[in-house]
């Protein structure tokens, strides 16, 4: 186990390094720069700005400097938001996205797993068909459609729910609904098919023949085996919801990391782009390692190597 984790961490560091390198050069290859869009910048001021942030040096020197600093944990200052550090921006924006994303991911799991199991247990009956229709539609409707339709009906027309910000628990309802909709539907589908698969296994018949009670059979034998494919999906899902969906944040005016990331790309705020990319990549990799470990805890037959 320890050997496995060390190997994964080494591999993860390598991947993050390559991702950072790739992003750095790709970002700099693209024509334009962080100070191009600003009006009334004289050539002298531009040169001064470039010099201040070290953008006048050759790309290779910039790269080596960046990697050296990043290895020490210093991601530099934002080029566009004067006087703010990249780490400050991430630590102030990420909790907002993470809280929203965490609640959404939890909602998706809490609804998706039972829905899928109920569908599988009532195969071919009303609830099964109902859940299939719901989950297929859930996968088909893009998140911005859900957001705007919700906003129009519940926010504007009926006025039940606030339409922007995250001030009270009531504010969370619509964004969480919009963020959790797709994962819930997806998990329900996954859960249904894997539950059907498990219910047809020989050990389920054995369990019934032993005279086990229905709950023991369901929770100890069926659910534990059927939930494995869902666990695989949870890693990418968590990374997606925690890092914040740009669309949801834009529509509901939530100051999260997703919106920050996109606007930094649009503004060519090089240091923020680099910092956020490294942060998101690390998040995704950590989630995947955690998922592998949880996988092993749930299914002892799986060997980590």
């Amino acid at each position, binding site marked *: 186990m320890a050997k496995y984790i060390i190997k994964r961490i080494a591999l993860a560091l390598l991947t993050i390094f390559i991702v950072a390198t*790739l992003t750095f050069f*790709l970002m700099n290859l693209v024509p334009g720069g962080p100070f191009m869009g600003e009006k009334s910048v004289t050539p002298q001021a531009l040169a001064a700005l470039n010099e201040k942030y070290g953008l006048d040096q050759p790309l290779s020197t910039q790269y080596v400097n960046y990697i050296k600093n990043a290895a020490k944990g210093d991601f530099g200052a934002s080029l566009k938001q004067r006087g703010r550090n990249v780490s400050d921006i991430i630590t102030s924006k990420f909790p907002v996205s993470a809280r929203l994303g965490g609640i959404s991911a939890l909602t998706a799991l809490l609804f998706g797993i039972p829905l899928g199991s109920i569908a599988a247990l009532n195969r071919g009956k009303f609830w099964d068909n109902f859940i299939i229709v719901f989950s297929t539609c859930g996968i088909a409707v893009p998140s911005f459609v859900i957001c705007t339709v919700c906003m129009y009906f519940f926010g504007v027309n009926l006025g039940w729910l606030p339409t922007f910000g995250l001030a009270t628990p009531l504010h969370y309802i619509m964004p969480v609904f919009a963020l959790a909709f797709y994962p819930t539907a997806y998990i329900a589908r996954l859960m249904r098919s894997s539950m059907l698969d498990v219910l047809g296994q020989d050990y389920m018949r054995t369990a019934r023949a032993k005279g086990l009670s229905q709950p023991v059979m369901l929770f100890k034998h069926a659910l534990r085996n059927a939930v494995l494919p869902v666990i695989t999906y949870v890693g990418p899902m968590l990374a997606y919801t925690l890092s914040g969906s740009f669309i949801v944040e834009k529509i509901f005016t939530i100051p999260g990391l997703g919106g920050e*990331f996109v606007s930094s790309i649009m503004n060519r705020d090089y240091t923020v782009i680099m910092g956020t990319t490294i942060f998101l990549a690390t998040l995704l990799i950590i989630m995947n390692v955690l998922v592998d470990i949880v996988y092993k805890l749930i299914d002892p037959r799986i060997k980590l190597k």
Partner: protein
Amino acid sequence: MPKTNPISFQLKVDDFLPASDSDKQSLVVMRESVSFWRDGARRLRKNKIAMVSLVVIILIMIFSFIVPAFYPYSYETQIRGSENLAPMQYSEKEIAAMDAGESVFPHFLGTDKLGRDYAVRVMVGSRISLMVGLIASAIILIIGSIYGSIAGFFGGWVDLIMMRVVDIIYTVPDILLIVLISFALKSPLEQLASQPGFTWVQTLGTNLISIFIVFALLYWVGMARIVRGQVLTLKESEYVTAARALGASNGRIIRKHLLTNCIGTLIVTTTLQIPSSIFTESFLSFLGLGVAVPLPSLGSLASAAVNGLNTYPYLLLAPALLISLIILSFNLLGDGLRDAFDPKMKN
């Protein structure tokens, strides 16, 4: 005939006579052999949901590719005086024309704020979305299957390195790559468009082409992973060993034996890729990185409608509904195809 010798084979001469016509007749197979395709198609036809989705897709294709050519309005003509009409509403000018006895084609879905007929814009928009879905999926199919099969077939170091590349592409946030690549491609594509013989680049819009390139660069990784998984199991089969013993080259084994045997998976994954490409395109258009104005796509129409949601909410309905319908039908068709063509699901 009594046994004369216990060790004799007791051959009968009758057994060695040429077969008569009636004997031959009994050996002719009455039923045609069912090929893989026909078998799958038969099962697909039985699946009502998949057939309904197929009909819906064909209908949407007719509406988006053929009908706009005959439609009395065009997606870019701005009609003065008929801005922001509600569905089936006529402008004062048109009412005057109708009073004078002319026939005026109704605006089924109204007009947008520049006075363009919304119905034809929605149709052309779904054409763009479908095109993005189909072409992008074709690109993804080609790159993903070649890459995945090579990685799976050669294994070892080749596999390790090729799959690390996949992991890296998977780890970089895709929105970053999409934005950067479309910025990077902008000026080369515009230069290309000004060259003689490349005017089609201008008509399609540089953004649309960079969307295709982005898809080609990014989204094949999922397909590559699936194909690799299939090839890893298939390459252990006896027929691959047999082909190799007969001296088939690696390329031939991949093309003729491995890829043809995962054709079911390839079809299904491609069909399911189409909705996800449409999804991504609408998302990009929503961000303003999609097709160039005045060309509409379902995503850009929805995005424009969201901005005027409070005053003209009906503008959102058609594009949002159509995106959902297209994605839904492709998903259901893909599920049906999987049931029909996946050998594990037989009967």
